[in-house]
């Protein structure tokens, strides 16, 4: 099982804090890898403007690193900052690591005329092109994300060990949202792309559990022929893509996600004030119904954080915190470790109908129920 930890705070903090918190949850995990997504990023060596995209990944050879450089230059991206990790390669299990890159770019001048949608599309296509470039060269280049204000780090090994190897405790990077996951996908072959959190166009999710409806969902997403819906080295990647599809492409309110992945039963929808619409949604999104024990933790571009559970088997998941600072984790001890000084009586473990939201203002935890009225006017 994967251990999951998310911390969101109004004041930026070091990702290393979350890694140490994960140590509290070490029982029952294999600690085979680390996936980290940071938002609301602050560099001590550089004043970052949030609209500039950050490219995160690993160059496995020098040649790949140069190819990356050339590629970005040719596309017209202007390098503004290249974060030099202080890496202790001896502490990294994998041998073929040339450079962990984390680079801030300025958008090409020719993109000035692009609408926001177009910029988002192009950023994704650029990431995919780079990924393909790496795959075409024997996998010598791994690109995790290319998006404003998002940093992704993934590596094989014990999470805290990786944190130490990359010297994440040197406080040179801080963030307002940190998502961390402590396992490589050991159900299948080890592949850096198979490690959560998964990312697409500003949306990131991580999951613990097995999605038994994976194959039909994957086939549906693949059949959409949308360029970003690729990969699927892990059964959990579909959760990210469904959230992206519902929220970003269908442009439906966030409440819809839960109604898509675990819709209410017909009898329940018959009583629901917007039951007719939701029944229709359930039919048209039927192939996106998930199954299996899953707890999904996600974050959006505006730093909203969410947690949802599957409909039945409910992997553990707890949310707790206080005004300005919240934590979500797969174990209660993980929340304890991230925010010890909170009122524990307000901790919440979402049930099958709940979506837990921490809005960007971080004032309070919101709990939505699928039985609540659905914001239909927003859809129209």
């Amino acid at each position, binding site marked *: 099982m994967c251990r999951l930890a998310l911390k969101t705070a109004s004041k930026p903090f070091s990702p290393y804090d979350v890694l140490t918190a994960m140590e509290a949850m070490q029982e029952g995990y294999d600690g085979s890898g680390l996936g980290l997504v940071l938002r609301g990023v602050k560099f001590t060596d550089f004043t970052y403007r949030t609209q500039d995209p950050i490219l995160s990944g690993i160059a496995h050879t020098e040649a790949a690193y140069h190819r990356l450089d050339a590629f970005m230059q040719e596309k017209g991206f202007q390098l503004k900052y290249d974060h030099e990790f202080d890496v202790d390669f001896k502490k990294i299990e994998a041998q073929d690591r040339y450079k962990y890159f984390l680079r801030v770019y300025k958008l090409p001048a020719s993109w000035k005329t692009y609408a926001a949608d177009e910029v988002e599309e192009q950023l994704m296509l650029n990431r995919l092109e780079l990924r393909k470039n790496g795959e075409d060269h024997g996998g010598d280049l791994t690109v995790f994300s290319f998006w404003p204000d998002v940093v992704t780090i993934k590596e094989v090994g014990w999470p805290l060990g990786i944190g130490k190897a990359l010297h994440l405790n040197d406080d040179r990077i801080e963030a307002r949202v940190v998502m961390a996951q402590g396992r490589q996908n050991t*159900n299948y072959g080890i592949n850096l792309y198979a490690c959560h959190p998964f990312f697409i166009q500003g949306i990131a999710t991580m999951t613990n*559990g*097995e999605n*038994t*409806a*994976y*194959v*039909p969902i994957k*086939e*549906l997403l*693949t*059949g*959409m*022929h949308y360029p970003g819906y690729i990969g699927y080295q892990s059964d959990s990647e579909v959760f990210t893509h469904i959230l992206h*599809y519902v929220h970003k492409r*269908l442009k*439906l309110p966030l409440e819809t996600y839960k109604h898509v992945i*675990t819709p209410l*039963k*017909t009898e329940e929808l018959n009583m629901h004030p917007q039951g007719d*619409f939701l029944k*229709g*949604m359930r*039919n*048209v*999104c*039927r*192939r996106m*119904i*998930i*199954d*299996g*024990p899953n707890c999904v933790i996600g974050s959006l571009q505006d730093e909203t954080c969410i947690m949802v559970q*599957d*409909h*039945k*088997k409910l992997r553990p998941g707890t949310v707790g915190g206080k005004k300005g600072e919240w934590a979500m984790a797969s174990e209660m001890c993980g929340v304890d470790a991230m925010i010890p000084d909170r009122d524990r009586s307000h901790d919440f473990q979402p049930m099958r109908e709940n979506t837990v939201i921490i809005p960007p203002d971080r004032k309070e935890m919101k709990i939505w129920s699928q039985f609540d009225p659905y914001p239909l006017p927003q*859809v*129209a």
Partner: protein
Amino acid sequence: MVSIRSIPSTPSSLTHLDLQWIIKHREDRFTLCGRCTSVCPKEAIFLTYRRQRMPKLDILKKKRSSEYRTFTGIRQRTEPANRCIGCGMCATVCPNEAIGPEPNPNDPRVRLLHNDKGEAWKRGGRRNFRGSLLDRIMFTRISMLTDPALDAGRHEFQLNTLLGRVLSPEEFLRRKATGGWIPPVREIFPFIIGSMSFGALSPNMWLGLLQGVAYCNEVLGIPVVMATGEGGCPPWVLKSPYLKYIILQIASGYFGWDEIIRAIPDMQCDPAAIEIKYGQGAKPGDGGLLMWFKVSKLIARLRGVPEGVDLPSPPVHQTLYSIEESVMKMIQSLSMAWGFRVPVYPKISGSTSAKSVLNNLVRNPYASALMIDGVDGGTGAAYNVSMDATGHPIASNLRECYLDLVAQGKQNEIPLFAAGGVGKNGNVTQNGLALIMLGASGVHIGKYMMQSAAGCLGSEQNRCNVCNLGICPKGITSQNTKLYRRLDPDQVAERVADTFMAISTEMRKVLAPLGRSQSLPIGMSDAIGIDDAAAAEKLQIKYIC
């Protein structure tokens, strides 16, 4: 050696050893009650006087001789028209277990003589092939440690499926916002009672099925629907609230549709769906065929024809010029008849051309589904050669169509229904779920329902299979009152309920260890495997051994 002419032998003469079923009787148990001979639907046996030699030895006179005794015994007729069909009714009625048919283990020559007077062999029933690829598909992805299995008895399972055209989410939202037409979609149980016409089935059978279906829906909460087959629907059903459980079929003879159309203004509810039959798995290229002796007064009234005439439907719809035209005319006009509130879908026989039909339907916004009937489908009457050798097995046909939809991203939009051999050896849930995991949204079951709910005696060993002759010994497929009174509709209804309760339990028993409960696992091909490498490759599932 005697001259050949002194032996009663013609090219068509047979002995009882040439028949497929040989009657075994035990004289020591005979009471001469005559029940077997009177119940036999084929008049295959008769009571006759026999003579038996009793050897006699007179020791004192040192003489051997014979005495003869006369007794009444059973004799089996050998003319093909009266051949024993192995139905076993004689055994059923025998108070003494004195008689019964046994399959002939040798090669029965009778099959070479089923063409008397140039008439090729026609029969009812099934394909007479016991093999089943579906029986070999196993559910191999078991949830254990990576995710806990479910409890089939305690957890809640969503077993239903959708029948009807499903829009893409984008189109659904667009139409919702603009008040556009949302195609009708029915939530139904994925095992559907396949089309068997009111003419083919006896009134008691039909009534029993309908009662059972209503009970499943209204008491058990299992939303079972049944299809009528060609030939209409009794007027009292058309105007009843039970019509919502019925899929009305329109086929090339259009039999019964005057009555249906006239009843529309009086209908209390809409039918579950309309099935347009273009083909049937058991006899592709043939229309329906109701033999004259099944065209009773009631059937004649329903179909709007004179009594006692053969009712062959044309092999194709008369209006059919091209698939585009047919789809346009038939689907649209039938949708229109019910104000676009009823799903309308075509049924075709399994064929290598199924994909082309499907691709046409994908482009037709009114087509609600596609039903493919494989070669193992049953029928009330067909030529033996059609049944045995014409058509396409369902598994690969369905899979190809499903994968074609997947490639287009349309698998949620046009549901595929499959039929033909589901439960042919009794493994109805296994077969149905295998097809669902290969991509079917549901399956139609006909023969299995007759066997399970009404005690049909037919088997793939060519047992009985005389549904075409109106002599159904169980009263299932006969319009002869004497025969169909044997069948109690209430008991059929009870068995329908038993059958669906058991299928629903078995579905949970399969889905629980697969870790699936939230939706029917349509296309969950990672969960199944087969012990045949070539089949596994063709179906794109795992090879297991």
